[in-house]
């Protein structure tokens, strides 16, 4: 069996994010890292492989993005993926979530995975939903925000929080599962794994290689245009206290609460 893990390179959390006014898109230059949520998806794949309840022969990391996105794949293979696939094409730039999901699904069709795993949300665009888009194109069942994953009856027994409490859902394979960060504690890559990452096979694919209809992707193929930006209604900034002397800090908090008759 084969697991594909969708990964994404996102701006480092320490870097302030901004919109590039000339393009109206997220400025994705600057320091980047693997989407932290994706490390949980890779860990989930490794645990399925090592668990042995399913015979997993291969874990493949898949990403879509410019040349630099290859670094996310290196990180993914250092965490245990066996090889990686990099979908990269100028025609894909500016794709919205629906177009991105379509393009990724075309790349996955070529791999024919039994399980697709991904992180519940990416850190930059906050699109929780790419898994549901990919699944509909692949005609596979899908579940997002899964926090427990077990192999039961040859399928996946998934738990997650939904609107009314915890739901347990049995999903037959092939399936597309987005995992939440509570599912596991990702391992740290060993130095050897980091050094060896660049030696693992990495395949590049352009839009045409995986049969993507380029009229359905990119800025022109996207059905949502988010060109205008405006500032949200201003909220007056709150008071900030840097705690240096805790007794003094506590005194200030109590005075603040007392002023507002909250004690």
């Amino acid at each position, binding site marked *: 069996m084969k697991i594909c893990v969708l990964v994404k390179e996102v701006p480092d959390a320490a870097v302030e994010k901004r*919109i590039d006014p000339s393009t109206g898109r997220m400025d994705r230059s600057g320091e980047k890292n693997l989407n932290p949520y994706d490390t949980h998806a890779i860990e989930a794949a490794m645990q399925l492989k090592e668990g042995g309840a399913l015979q997993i022969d291969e874990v493949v990391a898949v990403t879509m993005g410019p040349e630099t996105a290859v670094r996310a794949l290196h990180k993914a293979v250092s965490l245990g993926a066996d090889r990686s696939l990099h979908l990269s094409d100028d025609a894909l730039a500016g794709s*919205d*979530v*629906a177009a991105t999901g379509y393009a990724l699904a075309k790349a996955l069709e070529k791999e024919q995975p039994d399980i697709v795993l991904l992180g519940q949300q990416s850190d930059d*665009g*906050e699109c*929780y*939903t790419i898994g*549901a888009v990919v*699944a*509909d194109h692949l*005609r*596979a*069942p*899908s*579940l*997002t*925000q899964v926090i427990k994953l077990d192999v039961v009856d040859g399928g996946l027994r998934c738990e*997650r*929080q*939904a*609107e*009314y*409490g*915890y*739901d*347990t*859902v*049995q999903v*037959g394979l092939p*399936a597309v599962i987005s995992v939440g960060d*509570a599912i596991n504690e990702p391992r740290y890559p060993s130095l050897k794994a980091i050094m060896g990452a660049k030696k693992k096979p990495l395949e590049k694919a352009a839009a045409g290689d995986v049969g993507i209809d380029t009229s359905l992707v990119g800025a022109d193929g*996207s*059905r*949502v*245009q*988010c060109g205008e*930006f*405006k*500032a*949200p209604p201003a*909220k007056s900034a*709150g*008071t*900030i*206290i*840097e*705690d240096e002397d*805790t*007794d003094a*800090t*506590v*005194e200030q*908090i*109590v005075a*603040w*609460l007392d002023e*507002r008759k*909250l*004690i």
Partner: protein
Amino acid sequence: MGGILVYVLHYEGALNKNSLGAVSEAAKLAGELGTTADAIVVGGADLTPELLGTLGDYGASKVYKVEGPEGLAQPVIDAMDKVIGENGHSYVIFGGGLLGFEIGAGLAARRQAGVTMEVTGVVVEGGKLVAERPILGDSQISRSHYQGDLGIIIGRINAFEVKGGQGGAAEIVDTAVEFSPWSTQASMVQRGEQRGADVNIEDANVLVAGGRGLGKAEGFQLCEDLAGVLGGAVAATRAVVDAGWYPYAAQIGQTGKSVAPKLYLAAGISGAIQHKVGMQASENIVAINKDANAPIFEFSDLGIVGDLNKILPKLTEAVKAKKGG
């Protein structure tokens, strides 16, 4: 111009409040566009004609009733795909929540539609809907214009106000749907399981909420001590509830409860959007966090950058002394 279709979530015979907000919003927008707002429900025997008829009160014209499994997104995608195909709706609105995100995204794939999530406002411009969505930690608002035959809007929870008293009973249209093979490949084993003790946080005037920054389950003792002297209750974030540190019934946020107490004191909570949407209506927000860059400081009234392990015990003592004196 086709109508606006709204998915209405329900559980054990009760309609979801965020869904009713979406129906109310759709009815208002449909009025401006000169079209109608319809609702769709998928479920079993608890969807009685009486219950569904009440959707008319929020402005729904028709209610498409589909028999099918509950709590799973893909059967609803099949149902909405069929209803839109037969009735030519131009927009779909969801009230937010996990299932709305999944259905909306899957439906966008199915019908080659545009989709915008976390929407906090919808306006009519030039006879079309424009969705407004806060981005980059709510520091900017992005405006989405839709191309093509269908636009999908997924609201942020609590974004749309529930407005009853808008009309009579809605017309119920029984609709048979043949579900896709992959939709029936997932099945609900158990729905709505409650884990941990039952606590009531929705009626509290004061809430002391704990997050991952507490470090471990035992850290909640600090919150309980402070809540005790303040006469309040203890709440928690999704992350710590999923980690088993605190009961599900105390959870604030996108999944979980929405609260608006007089005082919300957040200890060790970074302030992710999913948490913020459940507590931002609180009158006074106090945050204690060791990370000066935590987003919660952007919407707190009083922020303390420091170690909660040092601050909370002393604050509890100081409040106790203040009350005693």
